């Protein structure tokens, strides 16, 4: 019988302790796996979200899109950017708070995204939302809304929406505007508790009774080839503005908002691994101490020192391996719950996830578990390797 088979029988002989050991590793492993998913989850998710939008570069007046100043002379700025040889298209994005007045019930507060595009050689321009049903809004009287607004206000495609938008300040008292709903859309950058709607810049102007001004919160740009070169060209042409590629936006967020989760993930990963090593070491050590007589007898029967060490190592590998396999589904289940909790944070886009599965995290998880199995087995392996056969047998028999 080989070492693994022998270790398996040792574990089966003590089913309660073996099961509890495996379950303990599974629980700790699930937490470890989740912390590894958390360490890069936001970055992976944000990068995916930015790349899916189809826009390479974000041009703003402030530090981060949507968090700084509005840029002035939006139309001429967008035209200048679109005229650059390395730019395929540019899109003005203007945000406003809208108060939708359903026929009955309380008003719905939504974020209104007004967009206007400029492209070279007729390149297609896609708005920062995805149409699910209906068609794209065009002109000054059409909008698309998200599913939440549609159900809350009982609106359907072809219906009319009455809203008051405030483009400049909260204390505007503008007349209500009526716009036609032509589609239901998903807004990937809208927060989990935020309703969103979109339309052309003209539609936004109509909603704000023309009180918009030539300003933009953000300019989205698609480059012909390399995004970095295009961003550099924009910065050279418009030195007052910030042009950031998707990688730079992710890098900036990594340094600021996402940093906390990376740090907490590192701390918890370290604590979890230390906890697992300590507990498995104790489990194996106690188990070996209880079987000293048995191990000495095996040595006396001809089992080599290397063989008994291999038995202990195999036992550790079986406990950690079984627990590790169980930890993957458990971890994924737990991560969905933790993700739901963290997405309760204000301003987090609904499609952004804190825990994202990636192969690198899985590889690190497996590596850490292997290291745990080896390190945890070191001390018990030392005990069995230095076991005095005759003395142990005498102690066990006489004692």
């Amino acid at each position, binding site marked *: 019988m080989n070492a693994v088979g022998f270790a398996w029988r040792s574990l089966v002989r003590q089913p309660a302790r073996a099961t509890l050991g495996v379950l303990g590793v599974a629980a700790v492993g699930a937490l470890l796996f989740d912390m590894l998913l958390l360490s890069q989850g936001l970055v992976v998710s944000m990068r995916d979200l930015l790349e899916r939008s189809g826009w390479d570069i974000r041009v703003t007046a402030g530090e981060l899109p949507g968090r*700084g100043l509005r840029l002035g002379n939006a139309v001429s700025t967008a035209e200048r950017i679109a005229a650059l040889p390395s730019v395929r298209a540019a899109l003005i994005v203007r945000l406003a708070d809208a108060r939708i007045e359903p026929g009955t019930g309380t008003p719905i507060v939504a974020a209104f995204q007004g967009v206007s595009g400029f492209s070279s050689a007729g390149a297609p321009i896609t708005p920062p939302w995805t149409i699910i049903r209906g068609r794209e809004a065009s002109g000054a009287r059409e909008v698309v809304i998200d599913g939440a607004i549609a159900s809350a206000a009982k609106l359907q495609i072809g219906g009319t929406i009455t809203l008051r938008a405030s483009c400049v300040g909260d204390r505007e008292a503008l007349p209500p505007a009526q716009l036609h709903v032509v589609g239901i859309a998903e807004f990937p950058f809208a927060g989990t508790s935020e309703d969103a709607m979109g339309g052309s810049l003209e539609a936004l102007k109509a909603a704000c009774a023309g009180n918009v001004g030539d300003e933009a919160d953000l300019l989205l740009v698609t480059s012909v080839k390399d995004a970095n070169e295009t961003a550099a060209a924009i910065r050279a042409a418009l030195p007052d503005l910030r042009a950031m590629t998707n990688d730079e936006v992710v890098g900036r967020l990594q340094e600021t908002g996402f940093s906390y989760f990376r740090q907490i993930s590192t701390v918890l990963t370290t604590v979890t691994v230390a*906890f697992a090593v300590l507990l498995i070491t104790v489990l194996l050590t106690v188990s070996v101490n*209880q079987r000293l007589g048995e191990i000495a007898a095996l040595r006396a029967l001809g089992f080599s020192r290397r063989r008994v060490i291999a038995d202990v190592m195999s036992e550790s590998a079986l406990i950690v391996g079984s627990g590790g396999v169980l930890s993957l589904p458990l971890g994924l289940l737990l991560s969905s719950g933790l993700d739901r*909790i963290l997405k309760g944070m204000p301003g987090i886009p609904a499609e952004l996830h804190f825990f994202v599965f990636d192969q690198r995290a899985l590889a690190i998880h497996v590596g850490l578990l292997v290291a745990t199995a080896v390190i945890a087995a070191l001390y018990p392996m030392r005990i069995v390797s230095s076991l005095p056969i005759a003395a142990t047998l005498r102690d066990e028999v006489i004692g």
Partner: protein
Amino acid sequence: MSVRTLLLALLILAAAPAIDAQGQPPDILISRQLATSEGLAVGSVVRLGTDAAGTGAREFRVAGIYEPTPDPSRLGAVPREVRLHLPDLLDLTRSPGTPAGTEYIAGINVALTNPADARAFSRDVNARMPGVVARPSSEAAGSAGPFRVLERFHLAIAVVTIVASTVFLLALTIMLVDERRETVGILRLIGLPVRRVLVQVLLEGLIVAGAGAAFGLVLAVLSEGLINAFFQWRYDTALVFVRITRDVALTSTAIAVPLGASATVVASWALLRRSGLRLARR
């Protein structure tokens, strides 16, 4: 009255030596981080403008350097801030078409004589002044504030950790109890009833769990300073990340001690149901 505002639009254009008291520019306060990054000191004179070109920039004198109030929602962002007297700020930022006195302000902080009246005062203001929203500071973050969400996240992590610890604890106690099978068998053979042995096991469990909880608390208190020092250094903030309060210590002890003692009793129970002879045999 001075007001704290986010001066993202304001840019420090130049630093110049302090000038005489005669014709001295208005005073401002700057954050410690801004002072460090720009090499400013009390008495420095700076020019502030609302755009990068320095349009309409005016001179101000740094009257003091302050430590910004820690703000978890801006964690990671170095707070380079300036505090101006409200009239100075409005003069600087007012657009040419805006008559003085018609500007917006983002909010008014009110300090009450009796802080316990905050809720009643808010209700009163909301009723008397339509269009103005008053909220007690304690409710300003709302149920979905970053603090509350992080609290729920950490609670969930704590629950998973407790579950994992409990499972390991059970495994360990089963092994330890098994190791003492002969001792328990002899105690039973000399006449000690099951209940007596169980009480002894429970007391042992309580002592071990109590010692473990105390050790855990000492470890937590020692690591508290280290964790805070690391994160405060990492984020250049005075925010306190870990605080072992009396409630936290009591809650941890209230969970750990009964859990440890119960695990010992549960693990012993199966053993104690066997006869003394069976336990004591070699």
